[in-house]
């Protein structure tokens, strides 16, 4: 086994506090952490700040349901959650640009079913509902969960702060202590 090169430097390793400080500077003031995280995420999620973004395949209501469920799957912890990195925007873009009309309609129909139950529930009931669907591996929920994971862990925050990402590793070491890497590789 050979020794590791230094972990990546530059944008990939800006820590959370530094990122928040920079966001605060840009916005000219002190911000609450969740809000700033959302701003940071907005910078990467297809450009538009949250206020001006409009879904194209989903209605604003449906997009809100996706964002809320995604946040339950991957919530904010010591790193931002699914909503803040714009998972709902990624899913909307995928539906609008990548899926066939048939795939899109199937997704929207599945979302409508889930959304009805979800939106009329209390937070506790919502949680119980999602846990039941997860336990049963219900097909639509399974799809939504997978897309949430894709949207989150391929986001810049997901890849570089929640996980580790080395754009140009430079070498391959086939056996290093996990502690030396610390986290799952994003790619």
């Amino acid at each position, binding site marked *: 086994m050979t020794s590791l090169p230094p972990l990546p430097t530059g944008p990939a390793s800006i820590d959370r506090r530094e990122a928040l400080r920079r966001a605060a500077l840009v916005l000219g003031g002190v911000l609450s952490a969740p809000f700033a995280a959302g701003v940071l995420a907005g910078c990467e999620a297809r450009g538009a700040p949250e206020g001006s973004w409009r879904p194209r395949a989903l209605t604003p209501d449906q997009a809100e349901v996706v964002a809320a469920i995604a946040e339950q799957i991957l919530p904010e912890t010591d790193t931002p959650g699914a909503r803040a990195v714009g998972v709902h925007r990624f899913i909307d873009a995928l539906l609008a640009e990548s899926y066939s009309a048939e795939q899109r309609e199937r997704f929207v129909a599945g979302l409508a079913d889930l959304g009805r139950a979800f939106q009329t529930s209390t937070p506790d009931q919502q949680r119980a509902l999602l846990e039941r669907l997860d336990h049963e591996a219900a097909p639509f929920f399974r799809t939504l969960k*997978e897309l949430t*994971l*894709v949207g989150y862990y391929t986001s810049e925050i997901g*890849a570089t702060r929640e996980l580790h990402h080395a754009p140009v590793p430079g070498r*391959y070491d086939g*056996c290093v202590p996990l502690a030396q*890497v610390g986290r*799952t590789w*994003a790619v």
Partner: protein
Amino acid sequence: MGGVTRDEPYDAIVVGSGITGGWAAKELCEKGLKTLVLERGRHVEHGKDYVTEWLQPWQLPHRGRGEQALYERDYAIQSKNYAFGETTRHFFVNDREHPYITPDGQPFRWIRGYQLGGRSLIWGRLCWRWSDLDFGANLRDGHGVDWPIRYKDLAPWYDHVERFVGVSGERLGLAYLPDGDFLPPWELNCAEHAVKRGIEQAFPGRHMTITRVANLTQAHEGRGPCRARNQCARGCSYGGYFSSLSATLPAAQRTGKLTIVTDAIVHSVIYDERTDRATGVRVIDRNTKQTREYAGRLIFLCASTLGTAQILLNSTTPRFATGLANSSGEVGHNLMDHISKAGANGTVPGLEDKYVYGRRPTGTYIPRFRNLGGSREAKVAFLRGYGIQGGAGRDGWSRGADMPGLGADFKRELREPGPWRISLQGYGECLPRHENHVDLDTQRTDQWGIPLLRVQCAWSDNERAIREDVKTQSAEMLEAAGCKDVETYDHDGPPGFSVHEMGTARMGRDPKTSVLNAHNQTHDVPNLFVTDGACMASTSCVNPSLTYMALTARAVAYAVGEVTRGNL
């Protein structure tokens, strides 16, 4: 790279700029021949045109999920290739624009990259030498025709091409998988080491090694080293892997003898009955659809196994009414591919405190262990053999989709990698059979007026028996090595899908049963050579590109020698 010089006749015309066209160009130019390379696809500039090379996951519009409706409509065949995706689509053809015909229920997946560099941009990069176990196979069991060459004929040319390519790998001292002068091998990871120990202990005589691969573990010939990004098919401006664009075409360019013309679809080879020579090629401009001709003294067809067959079949003359150099009637026949997409996978227990750094651009290999001719070998119910590619790694975040859990605990769990998993996949030999063939449709043409290729190719019982043995043996080896949850798999794998298609203008000793002689020269037309996969008389079980390269370099040396001797 200008395309308008009227420097005719060229000393040599090379049709195709992929892995063999690049080699033909380099060798011809370095021997002083004024050489024209014709490429049917667009121009691609090394580095500058690797447009997705630097994009990070969050910069991909669909985060690697691509445009699924578009793929179904326009890339129905190409999108099934493992290297196709959001970052590489531009290096694959649009299936709708480039149709071919297969019988109902008998698919052939023809994977193509029509651009300068061809499929050398997106190839799998494994480099194995053949041995006399392979070159003698047809003679031994009577399938196909005997190869007109043996290992000793090609060995110096393997040396020659490996030295330039830069092949990393481990020397094993096996007669049936000859060693070369390799760059340092890539490392096995901890799980692969554990499985290797287990397999080699339980099955004496079997080996597990790292692949021999054209990814540079150290700088070589001004290229590389490979930076362990494992995204080769996007193109690599470090020149970390071998391609026509990173290596052979620049070498050819440096001689000042090379002309490259892109967007030039070769319609046919022009043959002069009076002199009994090919005199040039007829080309259709991809954009204007205008026809023009180029004159050349030597013609090298390096247009890929099916592309070359299509050109020969479309080059008819009174003497060659069924296609140029087809007096044997074998042009288009004996199409082969390797079987693959079957094997086994499992979990490697333990090693929870270990991980990898970097993304190794290759995997492991278990060389052939069937029908080697040993007296104590197990008898099997099939001819020839297979090798097994594989690799281990820890599950990443994507395992979460099929894992129960929601919320902060779930997120924390995915922050650490999952168990080590290993997967094995066999690559097996295919017997040459006359009935597996391509021909030209008499009615339909493509948008350039070239008759569509009809492809008829099916596996036989021998390939199916190999497939079954691959699965059984892969599972037994993983179990013997202590792996858990071992399962076999057998994915959809029609012919063509290994992208090792070969055989449509085979080499042989007898002009009545083969198209090419021992020097890749057509028996019928002395100044016409074929050095791509079409020339192969059998498939071996190893990845074929290195052998194509060695044959190409050897054929050029012979052809230029013949010119010098006044025979051509």
